[in-house]
């Protein structure tokens, strides 16, 4: 539901705070651990959840998320698993938005209409499909609009003025600004100064602007939160979960949330 996303930003605005968006790969390393992680995110300070849908060929992701996806697939994760995880999460939480994020082919294979229907029925609020630019997303967007789901588009440092108005005009919920021309998990040194870019997007759209890619530490997150309406952290959390387990990963999540909410 787009309302869940809108409410989240409204509430944050009232307390003059920013959104902390955490990404985890659905089904990594298996359904049980991933569910445990998912369910614990809101109480660890996460305002919006990005739940990754694994794909064999994630050409916009770095090795950390690619390997997480391959682990999830190895454990038998399918799109249905992702929907089941969202359903289970909704039994304990009715306010934190879930955005599912992944690549076009599994969605295309299921069929855009059925995908939208199932996402809606599972309590999912929106999706980011990395390899579906405005030029190719009309069919999915229509299905999403019918189900009151947000199809969130990405803006990048090289999205020029003309493209930017096109990108923001079809997006709902928020605009995701990719902090660099690069892949997920890249070094934070590559993050270009975001404040100018965020202002550029705010000029083109009334939606909140959330910034992601390359953000790893509470320090990085705090800096970005200063300029944007929200910050996304993915690879750093996925890496911690893989290397150290659920508790240390949640500890990192809490530290990041604290930095963003400061």
């Amino acid at each position, binding site marked *: 539901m787009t309302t869940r996303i809108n409410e989240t930003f409204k509430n944050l605005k009232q307390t003059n705070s920013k959104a902390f968006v955490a990404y985890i790969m659905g089904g990594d390393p298996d359904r049980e651990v991933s569910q445990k992680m998912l369910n614990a995110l809101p109480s660890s300070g996460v305002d919006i959840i990005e739940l990754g849908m*694994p794909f064999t060929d994630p050409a916009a992701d770095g090795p950390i998320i690619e390997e997480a996806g391959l682990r999830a697939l190895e454990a038998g994760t399918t799109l249905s698993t992702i929907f089941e995880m969202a359903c289970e999460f909704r039994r304990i939480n009715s306010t934190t938005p879930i955005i599912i994020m992944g690549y076009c082919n599994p969605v295309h*294979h299921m069929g855009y209409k059925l995908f939208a229907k199932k996402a809606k029925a599972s309590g999912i609020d929106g999706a980011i499909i990395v390899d579906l630019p405005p030029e190719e997303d009309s069919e999915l967007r229509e299905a999403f609009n019918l189900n009151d789901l947000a199809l969130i588009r990405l803006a990048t440092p*090289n999205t020029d003025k003309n493209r930017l108005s096109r990108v923001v005009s079809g997006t709902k919920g928020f605009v995701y600004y990719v902090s660099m021309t690069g892949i997920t998990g890249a070094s934070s040194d590559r993050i270009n100064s975001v404040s100018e870019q965020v202002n550029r997007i705010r000029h083109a759209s009334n939606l909140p602007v959330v910034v992601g890619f390359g953000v790893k530490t509470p320090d990085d997150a705090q800096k970005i939160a200063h300029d944007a309406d929200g910050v996304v952290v993915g690879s750093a959390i996925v890496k911690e979960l893989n290397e150290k387990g659920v508790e240390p990963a949640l500890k990192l999540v809490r530290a990041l949330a604290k930095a963003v909410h400061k």
Partner: protein
Amino acid sequence: MSNSDNTITPDENGRFGDFGGRYVAETLMPPILELEAAYEDAKSDPDFISELDGFLNHYVGRPSPLYYAERLTEFTKGAKIYFKRDELNHTGAHKINNCMGQILLAKRMGKTRIIAETGAGQHGVATATVAARFGLKCIVYMGATDIVRQKPNVFRMRLLGAEVRSVKSGTATLKDAMNEALRDWVTNVNDTFYCIGTVAGPHPYPAMVRDFQAVIGREAKKQILEREGRLPDALIACIGGGSNAMGLFHDFINEKSVRLIGVEAAGKGVESGLHAASLTGGSPGVLHGNRTYLLQNNDGQIIDAHSISAGLDYPGIGPEHAYLHDIGRAEYLSATDDEALHWFQECARLEGILPALEPSHAIPRTVEIAKEIGKDGIVIMNMCGRGDKDVFTIADALGEHISEGTEG
């Protein structure tokens, strides 16, 4: 380069019917739109065309001969079999036709860094070659599995000054090399030109690569009319992504009397599941920037392709082939590893030509079609690459041991 009229052009969204398009991350939309504009401009610029033609003549060695394979024809007892001998090009395959075009375009666009993916290594070698010729930095992504089975080409690329980056992710073959090249491009959009090696990828690549390869069919048409005074009955080519096939077919699309036949790699047999035949054994999906036929499971995950030939070991096919398949203009068959190995040897024995493992797949179907058409017929097969790069793989498959490190 000159364009014949009435051929298939993709619509403004880069679609051939339901196939093609631009399924890329937002970061890549600006560069592919920039590329499209630059290509549109270049292809109608007489200076660009004459520069390209000059290099094709004097550097690549075009036109390539159209050779009457007399002993194979006698052995077959069917239609006359001609080979379009693109294996005689500089660097040993058709791949350089496309690299010549793309790298001249890169130069025109002011790009200083060339990246490419490669499977068999032929596209990598061709890219490294042309990049060296123009003094451009070149990085080639190659699956770790392919690096092992195409060693001679890896060394060749290094000799040519290219950096070969081993890709270990996923299945460590061509599709993963392409993922890695896309990741590089996303990271280095400003100075980098991605030279894709086949008629796949986001628009404008499928149409652009086809146009650069179409010289094969234009020459073949002229040559067969001179030799035989008529058009052939069938054209046959192997298909990895489909560039040598599209290059041969393009000028004949409107010659309805000419059958167009693509041969995919059936690996250990299409029924075995271990194959690379995307049209014969796949279904429509989205990968590497375009909608086309893919090898995928019930959940839309990409399935590993299998072929003895690294150049055919790809789970997709160019979108224009998907379209020609669906409208019934072209036919798509397949050949197994064993058939390719057998006909590689027959071709060596009968014609004194060592074909690459890729076109070796086209020979068994060529022979069958020649038989089917009969004595008065004419067929042309694209001999798109030479087999020097494959001698170790073939020795291995035949259970012979030859020392590595020395070649030929």
